[in-house]
């Protein structure tokens, strides 16, 4: 992991982004406890992670380990029980258009057309109607969605809905994009295309991305770095760099580097998934699967 210092002097004066926030995420000793029906429950405990400006980072972990919780805290919907969540050095105080979010569930407004959905953030910024219409149409054109601008969301396929969701989140020009298993409900083919679209947009816009997924291939294909979380209460089990060169072609998943990363991640995650399933599968059965791999050594080995 690269050490990052605040580097105001290094920013070239000519850069159009010189005066803009860079989108650095810094989570320190984050814990969050829910007050559920059966008493308090630790969902996430002692998580520290960073996303450098312009970096694509994934979080992968078993179901219920607190991935959505972490992302919701970053978005500003949840306050950590302890620890700090900082963006560009400032603690988060609430939701803001600086941090775009794509949710696990489809979240387009059913009462707005595709274009009105994309315009929403601009409208909230107070942009004039004709101007935001033009902006939204430009963005929809880039994403190949212009023919559907006047459709209501319930007429769209799942892939299109998520695509509109991404365009909507990017319309306000956030420096950070948070995605919570955005492609979980899509078929394999659509998923691949969506991954390429996302990579493409990320490279063009130079935003920081924190991406939550269940899918190991997806995490490796997309990310610069991957954090593996443990079963509940979620902690960081391992941090893995993905040194695959970019731009990555779909064929990269057949390369030996990819497969090696995949194998390592697999065993890390299998351990945690079994743990997450509780007493259903005992430790002896686990041995039979040959999955005793020490995560911390793996990250070092890589």
């Amino acid at each position: 992991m690269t050490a990052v210092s605040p580097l105001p002097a290094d920013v070239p004066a000519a850069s159009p982004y010189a005066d803009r926030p860079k989108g650095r995420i810094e989570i320190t000793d984050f814990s969050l406890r829910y007050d559920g029906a059966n008493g308090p429950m630790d969902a996430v405990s002692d998580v520290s992670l960073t996303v450098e400006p312009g970096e694509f980072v994934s979080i992968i972990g078993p179901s219920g380990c607190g991935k959505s919780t972490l992302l919701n805290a970053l978005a500003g919907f949840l306050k950590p029980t302890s620890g700090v969540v900082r963006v560009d050095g400032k603690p988060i105080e609430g939701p803001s258009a600086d941090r775009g979010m794509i949710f696990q569930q489809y979240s387009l407004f059913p009462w707005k057309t595709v274009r009105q959905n994309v315009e929403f953030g601009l409208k909230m910024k107070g942009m004039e109607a004709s101007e935001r219409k033009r902006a939204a149409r430009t963005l929809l054109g880039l994403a190949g969605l212009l023919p559907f601008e006047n459709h209501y969301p319930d007429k769209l396929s799942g892939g299109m809905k998520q695509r509109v969701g991404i365009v909507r989140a990017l319309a306000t020009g956030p420096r950070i994009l948070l995605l919570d298993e955005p492609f979980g409900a899509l078929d394999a083919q659509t998923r691949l295309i969506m991954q390429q679209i996302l990579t493409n947009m990320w490279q063009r816009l130079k935003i920081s991305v924190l991406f939550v997924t269940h899918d190991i291939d997806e995490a490796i294909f997309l990310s610069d770095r991957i954090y593996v979380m443990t079963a509940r209460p979620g902690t960081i089990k391992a941090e893995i760099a993905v040194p695959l060169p970019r731009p990555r072609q779909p064929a990269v998943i057949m390369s030996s580097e990819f497969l090696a990363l995949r194998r390592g991640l697999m065993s890390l995650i299998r351990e945690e998934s079994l743990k997450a399933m509780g007493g259903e599968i005992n430790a002896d059965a686990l041995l039979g699967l040959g999955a005793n791999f020490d995560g911390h050594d793996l990250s070092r080995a890589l």
Partner: protein
Amino acid sequence: MKTATLSAEAPPATAAAPETLKPAASKAADGVWAMVGRANLRPVLVGFVSIALFVLVWRFLTVNRIDLYVRFMNVPSPDDVLESAKTALSSAQFADHVLMSCRRILYGFTLAAVVAVPLGLLMGRFKLLSEIVFPVAEVMRPIPAIAWVPMSIMLWPTNEQSIVFITFLGSFFPILLNTLHGMANVDPVLVRAARCLGASEAATFREVYLPATLPQIFTGLTVGMGVAWVSLIAAEMISGQFGIGYFTWEAYSLVQYPDIALGMITIGVLGLASSWAIRLIGRLAMPWSAK
């Protein structure tokens, strides 16, 4: 790769071609007939036949003065009612009754909607307000509007106001409760999405809570309109001097039996027309839910 990825998303439409190779003209014609035959014409025809059957049975029972425990001797026949409808429709007095009732509905119902919808929205948003209003509403709700007639006459200086008040009460609670119900079912993900896109509290209310609740609000308005008519007719029968409810009751007192049926049919038609109007407004207000 950059250009390829952006154009890759639109799958070519050629895959569907073999299935559409049937003669296009016959298919289109089929479609038209299917639409007219199944979707439009049949229900209308069946509707007419059903109403015609009803009138025929009514006519049979009344013309033959059937007495099967339920007595049809004094019940006017459709012919009698048609006759009295002709005289009534040509008299200004009948039109006055109808207009009077419509005006009371308009005032009472509109007032109820204007108070109950915003109140329901605010109660859904602010727990404290809900906790304050809800117990009172729960106690008042089961009291039928007719039971309010004596109290209403005491409360309001004029008869007219007390009838409008009763109409208001009748439609108020269905609208309020449906709005509340709608607010409780707003998808929290949509609220979060709006907040993430920079929406303020007020903007979230206007852009998310309100449209998300609109279908339930219109359910409430439709139910409320029905109850408004029920309450109005009851109030007019007891304390009115005008109105279609008064007309119907007066017909009974004056032994003008055909006018009773005329009054009833008029009430039915007015009720139908007003709920139809609400549905129309609903469809205009919610173009996204159009089928």
